[in-house]
C-alpha cells in the first residue's frame, strides 16, 4: 500500500500541487537560523521566496550536528555564538509569516533542543508561528511517539529522511506517518560532501514512487545550478543547503564581519539554482 499525506490541506501540499500544475520541480533551500547573526539571517530568509525558493528549510542550530558536514557545523556554531535559540528561531518564522503567507517552512534539526523546550509546547508554538513541517535527523521511525505522532496530531508535517541504506523491508515503516514530502538523502554520508550519480538518483526516486504518493525531494551533495537541474528532471524538488550556507560564509571576513552585498550575493545564487530547477524539464 502506498503512503499518502495525512495533512493534505497544508501549505506544503498546496505548494507541491501548484508546482505540479506548473509542470516543474521545486527548489528547497536550507539556511541555518541565526547564521551569521539573527538580523542577517532574517534578511536572507525573507528574501528567499522572491529569489526563487519554493520551500524553505530553516535549520535549528545544535552544538552536535552528527549528520552534518563542516559547512553546516560551522553555520550552527556561528548562529549559537550569535545567541540563537529555539525561541528566537520561532520568532524568525513569525517575522517571515508577516510577509509571506504561502511559502512552506520546514524546521530542520536535532531532537535535543526540542526535547529541552518540551515537545508539546514546541509543537504548539511552532504551529502558531507558521511552521509547516519538521525534519528531525535523529528521530527514526523507531522513536515515532517522541515527536512524529504528536506533530501529526498538532497539524505539523513530519518529513522523513530515506537513504540509500533504507531497504525494501524497511521502507513501509519509514513511510508510515511521513507527511508533507519524503526527503531522499542521495548519499550515505553527511551534508555538503559527495554527490550521487544521476542514474543512482533516478533509480532511487523511481523506487520511492512505488512506495508513496507523496512528493519526493532529493538532497545532500547538490552544489550547483546544473546539479539542481539534473535532480529536478526526476524528483519533485531539489534541496540545496551546504552550498548556500558556504556562499554566506564566504561573505564573512577573518574577524567574522559580513561584507556588504553578501545577502544579495546569497539570494543571487539562490536565483541561479531556481533558474536551473525551472528549466530542467524545458
Amino acid at each position, binding site marked *: 500500500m502506498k503512503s499518502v499525506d495525512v495533512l493534505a490541506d497544508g501549505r506544503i501540499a498546496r505548494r507541491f500541487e501548484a508546482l505540479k500544475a506548473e509542470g516543474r520541480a521545486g527548489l528547497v533551500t536550507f539556511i541555518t537560523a541565526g547564521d551569521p547573526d539573527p538580523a542577517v539571517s532574517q534578511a536572507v530568509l525573507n528574501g528567499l521566496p522572491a529569489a526563487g525558493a519554493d520551500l524553505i528549510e530553516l535549520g535549528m542550530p*545544535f*552544538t*552536535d*550536528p*552528527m*549528520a552534518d*558536514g*563542516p559547512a553546516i*557545523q560551522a553555520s550552527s*556554531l556561528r548562529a*549559537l555564538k550569535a545567541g540563537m*535559540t*529555539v*525561541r528566537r528561531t520561532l520568532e524568525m518564522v513569525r517575522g517571515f509569516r508577516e510577509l509571506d503567507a504561502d511559502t512552506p517552512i520546514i524546521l530542520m534539526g*536535532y*531532537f*535535543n*533542543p*526540542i*526535547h*529541552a*523546550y518540551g515537545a508539546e509546547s514546541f509543537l504548539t508554538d511552532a504551529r502558531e508561528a507558521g511552521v509547516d513541517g519538521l525534519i528531525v*535527523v*535523529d*528521530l*527514526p521511525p*523507531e*522513536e515515532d511517539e517522541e515527536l512524529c505522532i504528536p506533530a501529526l496530531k498538532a497539524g505539523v508535517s513530519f518529513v*522523513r*529522511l*530515506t*537513504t*540509500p*541504506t*533504507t*531497504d525494501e523491508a*524497511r521502507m513501509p515503516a*519509514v513511510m508510515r506517518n511521513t507527511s508533507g514530502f519524503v526527503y531522499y*538523502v542521495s548519499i*550515505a*554520508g*553527511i551534508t555538503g*560532501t559527495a554527490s550521487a550519480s544521476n542514474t543512482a538518483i533516478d533509480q532511487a526516486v523511481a523506487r520511492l514512487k512505488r512506495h508513496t504518493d507523496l512528493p519526493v525531494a532529493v538532497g545532500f551533495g547538490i552544489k550547483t545550478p546544473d546539479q539542481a537541474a539534473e535532480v529536478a528532471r526526476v524528483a519533485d524538488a531539489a534541496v540545496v543547503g551546504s552550498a548556500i550556507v558556504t556562499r554566506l560564509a564566504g561573505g564573512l571576513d577573518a574577524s567574522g564581519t559580513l561584507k556588504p552585498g553578501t545577502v544579495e550575493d546569497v539570494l543571487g545564487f539562490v536565483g541561479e539554482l531556481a533558474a536551473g530547477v525551472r528549466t530542467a524539464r524545458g
Partner: protein
Amino acid sequence: MTKLNTYRSGPDERGHFGIFGGRFVAETLMPLILEVEKAYREARADPAFEGEMRQQLKQYVGRPNPLYYAERLTEQLGGAKIYFKREELNHTGAHKINNCIGQILLARRMGKTRIIAETGAGQHGVATATVCALYDMPCVIYMGETDIARQQPNVFRMKLLGAEVRAVTSGSGTLKDAMNEALRDWVTNVADTFYIIGTAAGPHPYPAMVRDFQSVIGDEVRSQMQELEGRLPDSLVACVGGGSNAIGLFHPFLDDPSVQMVGVEAAGRGIEKGPLDHAASINGGRPGVLHGNRTYLLQDEDGQILEGHSISAGLDYPGIGPEHSWLHDVGRVEYAYATDQEALDAFQLCARAEGIIPALESAHGLAEVIKRAPKLPKDHLMVLCLSGRGDKDIFSVAKHLGVEL
C-alpha cells in the same frame, strides 16, 4: 524508590531502560544498528563466540585479574576492608580491552573489514588499536585535538599499533566531538565499517552490549570474593564517565539487595560552580538526547550540549550510559562525585600506600572510598574497581603538582 523484582532484565526490545536509552540515530545508520543488534543476539547464542572471547580474555588480556586486599590503605583509613579489582593489570592497562575483544569478534563475524572508534583519554583508542593489530584490521581513531595535546603518550601508542589517529577540531575538541566525528565516518562508510564504541552509551544495542562485555568484571568479583571471604561484598565503588567499568562491576550484583553500589562522577572544580566546571551528568545535568540515546546530559536551557570539565580526560563526557540514568532514577545505585583535587589526593595516597599508580579516572572512585571507609565497620567488604593504571596521567598530575618533568 520503586521496588522491582529484577534490575537486570533491561533493556526492552527497543533498547529502553525505563525512559532512558533508545535508538536516536539518523536513518542512514538505522538499518546498520538493527543489523548489529541481530548479529549480537546471534553471537550471544553461539557457544563458539563465547568460547573465543573467553580464550582471548584469558590468554591475551590476562584474565582473571586479582581481587586484591588493599591492606595498608585499609589500615590507614581504619574502617571498611578494602579490595581493589585490578583491571589496571589487564593488557593495555585498563578495563577497556574487555569490550574491544568482544566487539571486534562481532565485527569479524559480521564480515566488516574496517574499524573506527572514538577516544577521550586514549585508553579506549589504545585498546581498539590493539585488537585491530591482533586481528589485522585497519583502524581509524577519532580523538579531539585538546585530548591529543594532553594525552601524547597514548597517541603515540596508538600509532605504534598501526592505527590512524585523526584529530577532531570541531566543537571543543574533546570526547563528545570525537564521537560526533566517528558517527559521521560511520554514516559515510556503513557498508564495510564497524564502530567500536568504548563506553556503555550510544544507540541500542551498544549500552547493553558494552555492559555485557564488561560484566566479566563483576562476575569475577563475585566468585573471587566468595573464595576470599565466603560471601558477597557489602559495597561496590566505581568511577563513572560514560560508565562502562561501573556497569560491568555493578550489573552482576543488581539483584543482590545487600550489595550497595556507588558510581562516582567527576565534579571537576566543583559542581556548585556550574556545568562548565564539572562533568557530573547525573548530579549536575538533566535528561536529554545525544549520541543515540536518552540519558542525563550536561546542557543549557536551550538543549545545547555543554563541555564538561574534569582533570581526567576519560571522565569529561557530557553524558552517561542510559542504564546508569535509570539505576539512578529507580534508586538502585547511588551516584556521588569527587572533585579534581580529591582525585589528585587519592591518586597520591594510592601510590604511596599501595605502590599502585591508579588512572585519574579510578582515583575518583578511590576518593569516594576514602570518604566512606572510615565510617564503616571493619567487617564491611568494599570493592573499588581500579579501572586503569595511571602511567598515562603522570604528565598532567606533575603539572597540577607544579613539578617540571
